[in-house]
């Protein structure tokens, strides 16, 4: 590899360059890829991952971890549907879902930050508990939506683009701003960089971590509501394995699992790469079983690339 090419690929914007190149190749070679219909379908398919990745980015950047997101998405979607059906008010249903999602996140945060239990273990537990809640509440069956207005959440369009895509774009902007331009974002990165130094520098680390998890729960609820609207029901088994896709997308996007390093553009690119890979394989009629292998390979390659990048950028002297 020539030096300038190496620099381009391993530099700050390396991922974006690779993404752009991949996009170009796919557009030219895969039939029906670069059509308005397919593009919107692709974006629709990554809404859940994209939304949850926003807050997972904060979680990982502060050296935490959240495995409970998939269950929380399913549970809050279920709550939204059941509460709407029971009260006859969609607004109340949505509020109930947002409250439940936030509560799950808050509970994660309190156990992890105040009782100092490992985040992996804590969220592994809540992942199962919350999935259990969703199954108990629905008796294991899908719960249909009574009021068709609920469907409009995902069916409605603005400027001929479906609402969920707008919501996702809005979240990308908001969380990008939150990460780079606010005290909250900087403190998140500082905690990930060195938790003890941040604490001694006056950052209330425990409170920050609780907030990050609460926010994660809230965003999961938003994702759960949109997902329920799209699949026209509350499904207790929805979004299984979501946590792994979301963490993969973040890692693809250059978020460090060791904390302290994250960018919103990286995460957006990570999410899109996941979406494109799946979309292209569908367009090419590749059997779903192979898609697992490809997704895993993409993740491995991304991590290897990241490793090369940090080796290249290591300070010497």
């Amino acid at each position, binding site marked *: 590899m020539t030096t300038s090419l190496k620099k381009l690929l391993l530099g700050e914007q390396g991922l974006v360059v690779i993404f752009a190149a991949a996009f170009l190749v796919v557009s030219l070679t895969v039939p029906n890829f670069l059509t308005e219909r397919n593009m919107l379908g692709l974006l629709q398919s990554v809404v859940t991952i994209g939304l949850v990745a926003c807050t997972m980015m904060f979680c990982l950047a502060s050296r935490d971890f959240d495995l409970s997101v998939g269950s929380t998405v399913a549970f809050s979607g279920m709550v939204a549907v059941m509460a709407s059906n029971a009260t006859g008010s969609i607004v109340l249903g949505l509020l109930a879902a947002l409250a439940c999602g936030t509560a799950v996140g808050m509970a994660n945060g309190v156990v992890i930050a105040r009782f100092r239990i490992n985040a992996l273990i804590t969220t592994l537990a809540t992942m199962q508990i919350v999935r259990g809640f969703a199954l108990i509440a629905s008796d294991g069956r899908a719960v249909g939506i009574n009021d068709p207005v609920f469907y409009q959440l995902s069916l409605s369009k603005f400027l001929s683009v479906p609402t969920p895509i707008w919501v996702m774009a809005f979240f990308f902007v908001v969380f990008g701003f939150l990460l780079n331009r606010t*005290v909250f974002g*900087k403190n998140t990165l500082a905690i990930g960089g060195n938790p003890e*130094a*941040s*604490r*001694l*520098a006056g*950052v209330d680390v425990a409170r920050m971590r609780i907030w990050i998890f609460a926010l994660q729960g809230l965003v999961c609820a938003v994702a759960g509501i949109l997902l329920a609207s799209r699949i026209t029901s509350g499904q207790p088994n929805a979004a299984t394995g979501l946590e792994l896709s979301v963490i993969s997308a973040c890692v693809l996007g250059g978020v460090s699992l060791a904390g302290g390093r994250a960018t919103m553009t990286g995460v957006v690119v990570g999410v899109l790469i996941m979406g494109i890979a799946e979309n292209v394989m569908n367009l090419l009629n590749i059997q779903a079983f192979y898609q697992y292998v490809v997704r895993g390979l993409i993740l491995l390659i991304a991590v290897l690339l990241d490793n090369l990048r940090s080796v290249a950028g290591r300070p010497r*002297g």
Partner: protein
Amino acid sequence: MQDFLEFTSISKGYPGVQALSDVSFSVRKGAVHGLMGENGAGKSTLIRVLSGDQAADTGEIRIDGRPQHYRSVRDAFDAGVIVIHQELQLVPELTVAENLWLGRFPGRAGVIDRRQLIRVVSERLAEIGIDVDPGAKVASLSIGERQMVEIAKAVMLDARVIALDEPTSSLSSRESEILFSLIDRLRSNGTVILYVSHRLDEIFRLCDSLTVLRDGRLAAHHPDVSKVTRDQIIAEMVGREISNIWGWRARPLGDARLTVEGVSGAALPHPISFTARSGEILGFFGLIGAGRSEMARLLYGADSRRQGTVLVDGVAVRADSPPHSIRAGIVLCPEDRKFDGIVHGRSIEENMAISSRRHFSRFGILDRGKEAELAERFIAKLRVRTPSRHQDIVNLSGGNQQKVILGRWLSEEGIKVLLIDEPTRGIDVGAKSEIYEILYELAAQGMAIVVISSELPEVMGIADRILVMCEGLIAAEVAREDFDEHRILTAALPDASGTKAPISEQVR
């Protein structure tokens, strides 16, 4: 005596930096050779080249007359060169004996011969006079003992050249003495020791010969250390004369700024009381484990307090957690910069603004212009050497990192009490003076500064008054005019009877 280890015209460049240029010197067999220089002078690079970790661009290393062409650390091992780094490379969950055999366990068909394992190690440890139980887990050893094990490992590998990189930086003075006598024994066995240190006392205590590096070049080579003076070495290191690195001068002292009444906590069970005046630099001296750092952490609220009151300007303040202490005007520059001070992977600017940004952020949204201005102002004021404020703090030298942490607190503006623990640990001579000057200036502005240090010359050099701690109590108070090395050390050493009377109550 013949030259055993020879460096000839060693040069090594990295992109943008010439780390070593044309360095040549040699060391006699059985000599302890000091290697000194400020941070960035090229010591670490030279050690890396010697260890086989990195190849020199040009030049040659000869051992016992034979040129070495090693390509890896393994090759250097085989040539008998072992480097012992500051971060020790032992497996904590294995025993001493297992660590010493690691990589080449004795035995047959993968089954370890435990008897031989222990027996050989016991013999070797006894031979070089290291008093450590071969069956003990490394995790249960003190840092000093681990260092011994690391050296024993080098001896087990039949090292002919052992390089020690700042070996005493985390040792108590007693542990250091044990290390020194071990080095003396290795010397009499004919081993060449390359000893990298910032501490002049150690160089004079241990070394036969000495090389000083500056900016990657050979600044001086002294075949006989007994013929050089301290001031001469310092001048060679910094390239200019520094007759008095402390630069202390009298300052007018004001009223009591910090009053501590009966503060205690889990790590400091006996209540501590003292007062520091406005404009005063109050030194705390004590051996490792005497409770100095624990005291500072309690005052700052880094650890939770059991009882006691902290008053600033005569008013009791709620200094029970870092955010509260900062608001009350009490701040801490922690002892261990790497683990408790700097935020890794983040810029100088972010490291400086981490606390003070709350003053100019509106609704949690950053004012990036103000942060940039603040960073630029303190980079200039504290003379932080860096290409830009965006530089990752990890890439700065220890002295510059300390300045950034000082900048973090100075940008708070309302600071009345500065607790600074080991202000110049791991910082080179030139930057030390700069740090002291900053402290004098802050004191002159009316701050009360509590300096904690395990280096007696430093405390005596810069403090107006010293409180000596011993076993968690304030054992003595000494005013500047009565500073006396012997007296202070005596107070710091625990009595054999263990009946040292606390004078905490008298110090007011």
